[in-house]
């Protein structure tokens, strides 16, 4: 069979959360007028020297600790040499042979529901480097305009092993990494502003064969583009090979308008960067004390929180992973449980993951923008678990809270008279009424038609305006019909 295996490795440039640049004291704030945040060091004026930003290093340490990597006690900065107008020095200061973060891994959940599976993506390294400036090619009388505000912005380039086997796995990894760097506060994750950009190295092979020749898709700044670009590239490579052409190593760009990748540069021009240790910078030494201090300051990490959700709250692995997909979701969930109580951990999980998520999705909102607060949702779940309302009625209450028709679940239940009927006398009266009015259903049920029972339940619930306790209705009906 014509089976192809896809092999993907990802390099991510994460812009580190510092106020100043990695080697100069210029601001990194986004959106300033061109070149107003480009100082003499960023412009590479003669005689300037780089001085390393402590916070950038600390971000790298946080990341290394969060993924269980080796944080190098001694790492070295190197010059990556190439010519481009937005790189005034003629080299980028990066790390080559001795990066600050070595190894590590991130476990991600791929897919959802029954088809979900876990996969561990190994990381090769993460190294500190400076960003380049920005070139604007339009409308300067045949010239290019250069804005060097971004030049010297600190980046952590995070490189995986070629461990991913589908665009879904690539996106799952990118999402998990995105959540992690925000979780540990080293990157704002703003993809529109370029704070988190992925390059995907893609190749195909027959299963078990050596790696095929890869092409690198540059600068993907959304998860959707990452998936589309990989899917297109994979199909393109398979077609090429099946038509008898060999894949040439190349760098390609993804065009979101056409959904296609196109060659940016071939192997001949690419990747001869002549790295060498930068004589302007001494080796970066990270002491054991510094490492331990940073370790002590790390928040509970997604993987730890996930484990706690499973062990303490009794959630399934799938639920726990979904609820730790981002700090915002985890915080929302934990606040909800703190109101509804630990015993209601599972219903809280369902409400956050299913009902709330669907409603947010419908309005295109982020969980941080949810009109229903965790306190309100917790109060609602509390009324479900104590049988004040049924799950169906709860959806009504939720909708009321969403549109602001009441400050708390209790208020909505009171105002709209939604309190569940649990008085068995009252329910029994309703059941008797329904049985008397529906002799046909009764006869069918007694003749062995299970469906008829559901019809009777529906009639009772209708008579109760949905407020009868469903379990009690079931029990009473069964008893009466048996009698």
């Amino acid at each position, binding site marked *: 069979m014509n089976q192809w295996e896809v092999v993907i490795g990802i390099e991510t440039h994460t812009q580190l959360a*510092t*106020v*100043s640049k990695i080697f*100069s*004291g*210029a*601001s990194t704030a986004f959106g300033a*007028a*061109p*070149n*107003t*945040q*480009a*100082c*003499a060091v960023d*412009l590479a*004026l003669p005689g300037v020297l780089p*001085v*390393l*930003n*402590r*916070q*950038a*290093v600390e971000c790298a340490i946080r990341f290394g600790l969060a993924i269980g990597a080796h944080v190098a006690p*001694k790492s*070295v900065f190197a010059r990556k*040499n190439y*010519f*481009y*107008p937005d790189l005034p020095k003629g080299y980028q200061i990066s790390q080559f042979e*001795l990066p600050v973060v070595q190894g590590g891994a991130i476990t991600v959940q791929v897919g959802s529901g029954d088809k979900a599976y876990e996969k561990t993506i190994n990381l090769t390294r993460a190294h500190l480097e400076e960003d380049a400036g920005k*070139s*604007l*090619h339009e409308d*300067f009388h*045949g*010239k*290019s*305009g*250069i*804005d*060097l505000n971004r030049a010297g912005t600190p980046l952590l380039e995070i490189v995986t092993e070629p461990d991913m086997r589908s665009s879904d796995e690539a996106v799952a990894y990118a999402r998990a990494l995105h959540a992690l760097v925000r979780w540990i506060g080293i990157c704002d994750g703003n993809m529109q502003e370029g704070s988190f950009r992925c390059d995907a190295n893609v190749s195909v092979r027959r299963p078990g064969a050596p790696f095929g020749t890869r092409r690198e898709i540059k600068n993907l700044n959304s998860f959707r583009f990452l998936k589309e670009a990989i899917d297109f590239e994979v199909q393109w490579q398979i077609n090429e090979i099946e038509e008898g052409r060999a894949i040439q190593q190349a760098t390609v760009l993804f065009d979101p308008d056409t959904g296609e990748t196109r060659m*940016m*540069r071939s192997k001949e021009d690419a990747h*001869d960067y*002549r790295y060498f*240790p930068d*004589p302007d*910078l*001494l*080796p*970066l*030494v990270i002491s054991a004390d510094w490492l331990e201090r940073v370790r002590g300051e790390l928040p509970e990490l997604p993987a730890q929180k996930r484990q706690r959700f499973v062990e303490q709250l009794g959630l399934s692995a799938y639920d726990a992973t979904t609820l730790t997909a981002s700090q915002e979701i985890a915080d929302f969930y934990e606040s909800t449980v703190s109101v509804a109580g630990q015993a209601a951990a599972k219903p809280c999980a369902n409400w956050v993951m299913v009902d709330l998520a669907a409603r947010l999705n419908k309005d295109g909102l982020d969980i941080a923008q949810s009109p229903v607060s965790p306190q309100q949702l917790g109060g609602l779940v509390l009324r479900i678990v104590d049988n004040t309302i049924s799950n169906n009625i709860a959806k009504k209450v939720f909708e009321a809270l969403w549109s602001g028709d009441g400050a708390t679940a209790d208020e909505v239940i009171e105002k709209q008279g939604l309190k569940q009927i649990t008085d068995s006398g009252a329910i029994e009266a309703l059941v008797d009424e329904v049985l008397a009015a529906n002799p046909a259903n009764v006869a069918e049920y007694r003749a062995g038609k299970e469906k008829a029972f559901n019809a009777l339940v529906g009639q009772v619930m209708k008579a109760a305006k949905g407020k009868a306790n469903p379990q009690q209705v079931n029990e009473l009906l069964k008893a009466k019909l048996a009698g």
Partner: protein
Amino acid sequence: MSLTPEQVKRIAHLARIEVSESEALTTQGHLNGIFELIEQMQAVDTAGVEPMAHAQDVCQRLRADAVSEADRRAAYQAVAPETEAGLYLVPKVIE
């Protein structure tokens, strides 16, 4: 190890240095001389010696993450060959 004239021209191109045929030949001689020197050094047994990243055995000093540079664009752009709308203008480059 010695370099071919083609390799010399490629290195010159990567460094954006224009070399004529005769310069390439002269440079080839110079570079091959350097390679001989390197070969001699490589003959030294360095097993167990930690690679040296810098001539001084000191480590990088770090600075606090604070903005210390004011906007001096006007001064910098006063000496630039060409600017417009705050941008430095350069010959058109598109990959």
